[in-house]
């Protein structure tokens, strides 16, 4: 292990880790929005919306994220979508994780006992009120942990944007592996930073989950 080299290059890795964190936060936010919309569409009363939601989820879960990213970044200009690599990364990966999150959210909502809605309706709440005030709060409690799994996967998933040359952790590691021929050192350095990011996020999710848990 070449400690001297690690001490020399680690500031670049720290900078890259900030980009990885930015990408993670933005893609997760976009994913949550897309996921919520798609989950709502899939459970809608309107057939067309249900079909659109199902197609979105099926297509984005049925093809590799890397292909989706390439299609958007390299193929986008052909259909008039001009994005820089970072934007394409956020939008591509956000849409991808959104499809997975949609299923997580739908699963949580479906697993809330149907009797809850019935009881709320009996008490005079409208369908929308019953959903907003009774079903959703219970479902949100259930979805924290599985969404945490999605988020954990997404943090690692941000590495894909290295393939479209966004300078984040994996790209930086790859570049330094190429220039120093020290793959183990560079893997170690990037790996430690990824594990720190994932561990901190994981602790945050566990905290939220415990807070939301019923006593």
């Amino acid at each position: 292990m070449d400690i001297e080299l690690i001490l020399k290059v680690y500031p670049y890795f720290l900078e890259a880790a900030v980009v990885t964190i930015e990408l993670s936060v933005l893609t997760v936010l976009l994913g949550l929005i897309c996921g919520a919309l798609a989950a709502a569409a899939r459970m809608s009363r309107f057939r067309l919306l249900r079909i659109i939601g199902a197609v979105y989820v099926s297509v984005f879960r049925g093809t590799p994220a890397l292909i989706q990213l390439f299609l958007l970044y390299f193929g986008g200009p052909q259909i008039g979508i001009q994005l820089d690599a970072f934007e394409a990364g956020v939008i591509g990966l956000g849409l991808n994780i959104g499809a997975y999150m949609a299923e997580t959210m739908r699963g949580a909502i479906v697993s809330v006992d149907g009797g809850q809605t019935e009881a709320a309706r009996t008490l005079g709440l409208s369908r929308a009120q019953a959903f907003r005030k009774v079903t959703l709060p219970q479902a949100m409690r259930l979805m924290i942990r599985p969404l945490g799994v999605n988020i954990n996967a997404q943090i690692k998933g941000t590495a894909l944007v290295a393939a479209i040359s966004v300078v984040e952790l994996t790209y930086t590691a790859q570049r330094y592996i190429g220039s120093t021929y020290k793959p183990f050192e560079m893997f170690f350095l990037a790996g430690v930073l990824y594990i720190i990011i994932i561990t901190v996020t994981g602790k945050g999710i566990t905290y939220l989950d415990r807070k939301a848990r019923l006593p």
Partner: protein
Amino acid sequence: MGLDFTVVPAYLDTILIGVLWTIAITVCAAILSFFGGILLAVIALYAPWFLRLPVRFFAWLFMGTPLLLQLFLIYFGLVQLGIDLPAFVAGVIGLGLHFAVYNSELIQTAILAVDKGQMEAARTLGCSRSQALRKVVIPQAVRDVIPPIGNNMIALLKDSALVSVIGVSELTLSSQLAIGRTYRPFEFYAVAAVFYYIVNLGMEAVMRRIERKTSLSR
């Protein structure tokens, strides 16, 4: 520049060969990850500490870092150690190890969930500890986690696109080859997406079949 899918048929054979390579690498890596997962699970649970601790550390490292980074490590790291593997083999090892770690976590939980009486009964009947594990406990444990392992294998198929970056000419790299000649990224990535989707459907069907065959409640 509009879309023009008429350029696709000329490269269809290149793409189809890519599909075959994608299937080949997925199947090889899936087999490696399945048996590797069982092996890692047994080591993590039963081996002496000098084997157990390194394996747990390795698992922790592999679960906390991106597959792409691991592929770079394996591909360039092995070269540095003087082992010059073909890209395909490096890809299978990288994908296989990555998913072996995930499978191992599932299998460990399942082994612990198999009733203790099974092991005791096997021991009473004269099996050694390793025989009891191999013939009684592990088959039951693995059967319990076939559905989640199937999900991992479907994820593996999609992640196999990543090995294009280390030069395995599977579906993604074949499409890039065609793009390099025609400068038509949208068309060929869209075609690749369609093929991935089809292979994915096939894989889901295979997994459902395996699930049905292995579940107790038929």
